[in-house]
């Protein structure tokens, strides 16, 4: 025996295989048979199970070898995924036996999502059933395309080739409609051990491989190192003098010295070191699927959910996108309810904007006009999130293009992002990103200006119907802050329109948001200079406010809504009645105290 050990260690990587299909089509029997035929059972296990069967007066079944839970043996169905290990000459396998009962779809999904290849079983006698189709569809949504179909129980149809070819033709067509091509259709009898470990004389008309030799032809899943670099921040650690940004590389590669862009904030940082503990050499590069940590040359604020990429290949940042989703929740997926979207390390509230197509996954029939998604079905929907999400299309980078939906406490749905059409806000966001990259930054930091001014720069928007006293209040507030030695400045929307936007006349341009864009960019300049900008413009609607915030990010925006209308429920920071706004001194105090509480105004002892 050699002492270094490593060279003679049989590669113990496990090929992860899932077995799916309709209930009672023989998945557990096949798994039990595979274990038995590859001598993978622990000593005494076969006798132990045979003995239990005898004592309980049941006929022995291979399925009992893996149904560990009492309830499963009693009901004769697999409730949860179970895992079984076996070896061939070529390699080691772990088989995930996924339940075929419709009720246990979430367990089947759990099994299949963790697999790199799949066997889909169809009973020759019963033919293609509900779960045969549903499981096929789910495999496709999970991105699992290394699939072979096993036509089981051939003994029950006297090894009739016509039965086999009929199933093969029908199911090939079904898979083809989803863009999957099965690697092989293997006729077997799991119960009798035919075509499992080796091909057999009972089926002379079949010239393809046995199940075992098919499995050995499958290839191991490789980490997506060839795709653009994606690094969702998992956490930031400060256990010692190092500030380590940790996470897993979801795709691509990265090196020490690379300049990273963090989305959605567009902050930029250069990798100083890649940290690791108990390794011979400190790493200088990191690749897809590695859980790593790095330090940056400059200290910038990043947090969980930010996604680091290279500038040359940026991800999509948006709030609205189209997805394919499957649903496992007890109650329907519906419009008007808020769900949590979990995508990489991001967690964002979201809702359904539109059901584009709802499909009964057992028949693949479209459920016309259905405005909800029931358990076990699939749909194409448009999602909208409350704050922007960083992602890629599933077709481009699978690991950053898939997500789950949480209803209250439970993961109830999974999906992939299929298409995305940039909205007006998305185009603005792109502009901001581009502007931030090329902005010539002053040596004077924002914190330094804040320290001198005694306040952070802030945009105060006073909004409401015309004639409610906004302008008066704004002027009063500007004067009050000025006399407190603060840098206040009244920037009325009209003033920007008169000068900067004088070239825009037509109504059409206004609609395209150019007026708003220019106002935002002017405000951004003042904010950059450290001012408290007060604006009274009511030209802009609520959606425009969202865009304004986007343009001046990361500066703060405080909205003051003057109204007597109790029905108005729009989001704002301070709400004043018309009477309250008229008492300008008290109203200005309310605003001042709010800003103080929010630590926007810290007074002249403001510390960084």
């Amino acid at each position, binding site marked *: 025996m050699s002492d270094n050990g490593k060279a003679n260690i*049989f590669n*113990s990587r496990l090929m992860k295989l899932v077995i799916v299909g309709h209930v009672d089509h023989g998945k557990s029997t096949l798994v039990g048979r595979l274990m038995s035929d590859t001598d993978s059972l622990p000593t005494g296990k076969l006798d132990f199970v045979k003995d239990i069967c005898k004592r309980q007066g049941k006929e022995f079944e291979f399925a009992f070898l893996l149904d560990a839970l009492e309830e499963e043996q009693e009901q004769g169905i697999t409730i949860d995924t179970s895992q079984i290990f076996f070896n061939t000459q070529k390699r080691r396998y772990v088989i995930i036996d996924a339940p075929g009962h419709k009720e246990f779809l979430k367990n089947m999904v759990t099994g299949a999502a963790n697999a790199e290849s799949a066997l889909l079983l169809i009973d020759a006698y019963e033919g293609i059933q509900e779960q045969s189709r549903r499981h096929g569809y789910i495999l496709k949504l999970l991105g699992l395309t290394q699939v072979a179909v096993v036509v089981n129980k051939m003994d029950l149809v006297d090894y009739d080739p016509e039965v086999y070819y009929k199933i093969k033709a029908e199911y090939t067509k079904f898979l083809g409609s989803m863009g999957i091509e099965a690697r092989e259709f293997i006729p077997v009898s799991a119960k009798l051990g035919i075509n499992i470990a080796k091909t057999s004389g009972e089926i002379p008309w079949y010239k393809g491989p046995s199940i075992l030799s098919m499995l050995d032809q499958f290839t191991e899943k490789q*980490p997506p190192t060839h795709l653009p670099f994606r690094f969702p921040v*998992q956490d930031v650690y400060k256990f010692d003098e190092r500030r380590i940004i940790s996470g897993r590389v979801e795709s691509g590669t990265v090196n020490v010295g690379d300049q990273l862009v963090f989305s959605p904030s567009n902050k930029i940082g250069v990798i100083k070191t890649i*940290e690791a503990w*108990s390794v011979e050499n400190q790493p200088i590069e990191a690749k897809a699927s590695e*859980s790593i940590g790095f330090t940056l040359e400059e200290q910038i604020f990043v947090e969980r959910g930010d996604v680091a990429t290279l500038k040359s290949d940026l991800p999509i940042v948006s709030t609205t996108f189209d997805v394919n989703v499957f649903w496992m929740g007890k109650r329907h997926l519906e419009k008007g309810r808020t769900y*949590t979207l979990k995508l990489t390390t991001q967690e964002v509230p979201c809702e359904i904007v539109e059901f584009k197509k709802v499909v009964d996954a057992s028949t693949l029939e479209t459920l016309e006009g259905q405005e909800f998604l029931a358990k076990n079905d699939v749909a194409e929907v448009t999602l909208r999130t409350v704050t922007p999400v960083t992602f890629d299309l599933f077709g481009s980078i699978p690991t950053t293009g898939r997500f*789950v939906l949480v209803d209250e406490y439970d993961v109830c749905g999974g999906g992939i992002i299929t298409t995305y059409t940039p909205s007006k806000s998305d185009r603005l966001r792109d502009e901001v990103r581009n502007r931030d990259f090329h902005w010539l930054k002053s040596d004077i930091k924002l914190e330094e200006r804040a320290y001198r001014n005694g306040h952070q720069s802030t945009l105060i928007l006073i909004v409401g119907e015309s004639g409610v006293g906004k302008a008066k209040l704004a002027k009063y507030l500007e004067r009050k802050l000025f006399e407190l030695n603060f840098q206040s400045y009244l920037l009325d929307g009209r003033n920007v329109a008169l000068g900067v936007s004088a070239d825009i006349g037509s109504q059409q341009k206004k609609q395209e948001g150019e007026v708003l864009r220019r106002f935002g960019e002017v405000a951004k300049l003042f904010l950059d200079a450290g001012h408290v900008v007060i604006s009274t413009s009511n030209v802009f609607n609520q959606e425009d406010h969202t865009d304004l915030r986007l343009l001046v990010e990361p500066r703060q925006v405080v909205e003051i809504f003057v109204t007597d209308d109790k029905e108005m429920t729009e989001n704002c920071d301070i709400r004043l009645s018309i009477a309250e706004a008229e008492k300008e001194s008290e109203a200005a105090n309310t605003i001042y105290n709010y800003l103080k509480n929010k630590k926007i105004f810290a007074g002249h002892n403001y510390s960084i």
Partner: protein
Amino acid sequence: MDHLDELENQSIFIMREAYKNFKNLAMLWSIGKDSTVLVWLARKAFFGHCPIPLVHIDTTYKIPAMIKYRDEFAKKWGLNLVVGKNEKALSEGMNHEKGRLVCCEALKTMGLHAVMEQEGYTGLILGIRRDEEGTRAKERYFSPRDKNFEWNFKDQPPELWDQFKTSFTPDTHIRIHPILHWTELNVWEYIHREKIPIIDLYFSNSEGKRYRSLGCAPCTFPIDSKAKNVVEVIEELKNTTSAERSGRAQDQENTYAMQKLRARGYM
């Protein structure tokens, strides 16, 4: 990337998810090979530090060498060790002669219960693996337990694309299993590669016996083995067809012993 790197990266990801999502988190350290690998993985995940307290449930029937090893490495690695005991059951004379399953439940499950309550942990990291025995094969990486510690194995959360169950109703806690996907052989290969100091009860003694799985002295039996070091253990495992926990008496009590124990909160 070889298969050990693949396993290690996945486990580190899970451990970091646990650390981020649970304010009050602990890790169970039984002194055995699996939970010692967990401690090692934590130090990898957190760059030399182990920011998660380690809970050891002392039944007082542990093999004495285990306690010595525990105290030595807790000190050497700077670990925050919390020792839990079911004092009440012990003072009433609980032992395995009252029934192995009764004893396991009282001293281990209830002992753990007491520490969790006292410290208010809502997340607990454990080193169980799917290949150990049938009910563990059905576990999730993030597995909820209700207020009575009970495991509803019939209605488990789906787990896909490393999106785990991290939100839960008050009164429940989550068990986190970062090495669920490893095999016994993987654990030993990793110990070998990383040169992790493992308690020598796992290696063949002068009488030609070693422990393959560690537990309480009265209920854990060594196997015949010539394997004196990590490399020899790996060789032995490649050629064995006997089960890892065959030396653990509580597993053999009756057909569904482990299912019953684990449904009620056993590790």
